[in-house]
């Protein structure tokens, strides 16, 4: 693509960086812990037998 095309793009406003109190490593651990908890929670509501379930979801075309 040409340089000219790139130049016409507006300069994006920089997103506001959020200030974080915890050091990055500690924050990463916390986020991972939260994600693990969320996945465990989702495991409990997921339909059983994924393969059969997905196979049986057949729709008629619409619109």
């Amino acid at each position, binding site marked *: 693509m040409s340089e000219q095309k790139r130049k016409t793009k507006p300069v*994006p406003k920089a997103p506001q960086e959020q200030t974080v109190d915890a050091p990055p490593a500690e924050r990463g651990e916390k986020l991972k812990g939260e994600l693990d908890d969320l996945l465990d929670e989702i495991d409990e509501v997921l339909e059983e037998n994924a393969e059969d379930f997905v196979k049986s979801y*057949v729709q008629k075309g619409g*619109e």
Partner: protein
Amino acid sequence: MSVPKVCGVETEYGVSLRGAADPNPVLASSLLINAYADRGKVGWDFEDETPGRDARGGDSSSRGPDVETHLVNTVLTNGARYYVDHAHPEYSTPECVDAREVLIADKAGERILAESMLAVRSLLDDGQEIVVYKNNSDGKGNSYGTHENYLMDRNMAFASLVRHLIPWFVTRQLFTGAGKVGSENGASEVDFQISQRADFFEEEVGLETTLKRPIINTRDEPHADPQFYRRLHVIVGDANLCEVAGLLKVGTTAIVLTMIEDDFFTRDKNQQNITLANPVPAMTEISHDPTCTATIEMADGSRMTALEVQWEYFRLAQKYADEVGLDNCGGSDLGKLVLDRWEQTLSALEVEPSRLEGQLDWVTKLALLEAYRDRDNLEWNDPKLALLDLQYHDVRPNRSLYERLVNAGTIERILTEDEILAAISNPPKTTRAYFRGRCLSRWPESVVAANWDSVILDVGTDPLKRIPMMEPLKGTEAHVGTLLNEVASPAELVARLATLGK
């Protein structure tokens, strides 16, 4: 000249009747809607339905849909239409004046479907359940639509609309896409793609919605005074759950449409040529690239990324906002919000799409799938990932993975719970949906039928009175709120309307 972008969204939900020997989807959809509407159903008036009329005029080889008058069809007190379309429950929001209002109405629709699933339980045998999904594909080549509708100036040249909208519809999926595991309908294989719908488009322009789907649908059925208006029927969109994505989908498209009506594209002398060489294949090329870096071929032989095309639309939209204003797109406050979020979204997609988790459905779904892949070492063809994809869209609050993410604080909310709950039974105050909805809530027994542009009342004496509503911005709370409060009966309403000369 641009006209106010009165708009609405129709969603066909996927539906499953579980535990039945014959899981008939038409029956399931009918049961669901009847269960919700059993408190005084009002029929739909089909007199003005002409979905086969073509906006291009003259003869067309494409075939429009038949109107199915025998299926369940209801009008709700919030002004919406809730009905069986083919083999799906469909919810059409009432007419709204801007992207935020239609987002509220669309989210209220999800609650209505959830309520319907609860209400239908008592009608089913033990072990049976009806479940609906707000998505657009079963992953096996069958797609069902989420259509947007926008009021347009009748005098707008259709050729200009086609020219400026095709690149728009092909590239806006970067933020409207709801994400999908795999591909279908003969598209090339891919692990994950941005859009649910991109694999299903086969033409650039046409009248169909179910076969050989076109990027621009030419259905010319204004549901308003045809001397002044068109209704643009948009069939390329995905159903959104993320509020930011839903706001952007309608908000940005409304701005682009007013720019086309005001001929702003041709007025801008610095405009880049963003005409695509091959729009139909570009649709899947963009959808199949979650890195958002693939280039597509332009009509002039150069190549651009979808983001670069979007930046050009954004640059022009900003200029349009400065020079003309956004009064026809919900006003300057909402317009500024839409422009800001649009800019932030494009910037983030350029640097790292995962920053938009909780804002865009495809990014949010991809993050969830990647987390499972990491934890369980899953290959992309593992059925568990297809299940996660499907269940993201489950409308039951206790089973919806989207709702889990809302509860976990992952999803950015821009609406309040109160405004969504209010929109379940109350119409928008800003369009003719107000008149329709208020008539229904005050006199459910007297409203014999209703449709987008009329209400038919039984006033107790022959004949039935048909009140036409050909102007979408009349019948608002400001116009008829006092009148509706003052009159004691439908007969008095009709008499007062007659003296007003409407």
